């Protein structure tokens, strides 16, 4: 249901409140996405380090 706004103030209060929530969810999601994206990099780095240690 599309809400009805009678003043600019009520419109801004409504949209900005939701924007802040979206921002918070987005920041947390991007953090999760970053871990998802780079997860295997850490595995690879560890593998490389282990290989180096094995050589030494």
């Amino acid at each position, binding site marked *: 249901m599309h809400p009805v706004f009678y003043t600019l103030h009520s419109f801004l209060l409504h949209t900005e409140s939701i924007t802040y929530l*979206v921002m918070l969810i987005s920041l947390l999601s991007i953090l999760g996405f970053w871990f*998802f*994206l780079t997860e295997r990099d850490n595995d690879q780095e560890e593998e490389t380090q282990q290989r180096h240690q094995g050589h030494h």
Partner: protein
Amino acid sequence: MSGENTAVNKSIFTPFNLITGVIVIIGLFITVIRFTKGLGATTNLSNHTPWGIWIGFDLLVGVALAAGGYVTSAAVYIFGMKRYHSAVRPAVLTGFLGYLFVVIALHYDVGRPWRLPYPFLVGWGTTSLLFEVGLCVALYLSVLFLEFTPAPLEWLGFKKTRNLAAKLTMVLTIFGVVLSTLHQSSLGALFLIAPSKLHPLWYSPYLPVFFFVSSIIAGLSMVMFEGALSHKAFHHKMDETHLSESDPLVLGFGKAAALVLAGYFTIKIVGVTAGNHWHLLTTPYGYWFLVELLGFVALPCFLYAIGVREKNVKLIRFTAGWTVAGIVLNRLNVSVIAFNYHLPAGERYVPHWMEIGISVFMVTLLILFFRFIVTRMPILYEHPDYKETH
């Protein structure tokens, strides 16, 4: 003799040459009509829609997809990612030709093309966004030309001039980043003047930010997509360095593209939220908006991430092509499809076949120029005389 003739005939009449030859002939035919009979004879432009696909595709898409030049140069020279060095020349060449054909295509679109230098020579319209875009594009085309010059100078054997041009690399890269930031965003800002014409789902006060961020995505994806095509067509021209750097480049750029796409998806959602346009998502235009947002932003973001995690270069290259298509769709949505959305169907703009013909002509000429340069100049390989200079 007849045997020799057959050999020559075979080499000239290849499917590629035949198709491009036909397109060039049709393009030249339309060019004559455009410049002798005017815009009315060749376009469906009107007072409602003064900007058609020559702006929506040739200019907006052309500028976005040419962003690979500044993105790659910035990564290599400013952020010091020297491992991607072999991608700089193809990216700068694509950028240079992209901007060159943007300017050439603009001559078809403006009513009096001989007046294009007027904003710089006659009256400086410093309060106009279009002036800023024009000035930036003119300056950046010059910057890209200078960035590209070491390759033809190496090819021609002008060592001293080449070394002088190579010394300018860093300062040109900085100019390129500054100018690109300005005009990529200003192209989006041009539509801020038409809040009643552009559909609310695409109209946003953040349009300049959307255009700039998506230009980074376009640049990264275009470098990978163009690299994939070059690998198929010009594999024999690539040296060992280029071939060995290819896969790490795709993985690195794929990761960057995934992250920037995630950011772009977020700010697009913020755009809908700030305008409180959620209810429009269940309208036909809303479904189309979701196709763009989910199919060409969220999906490639996810595919890039999977490709990077699995080290699947093929998937990343496919996703790069998909993302390039998404950028084309986004620019056409803003400038043509969602523009004048309130007009009745009969008054809506549908491009004339000659408009499409000129756009295809421009893309074909760009490919022909790219092929001519790549097969002659040191673009996909390092010139043996300058190997130690990198």
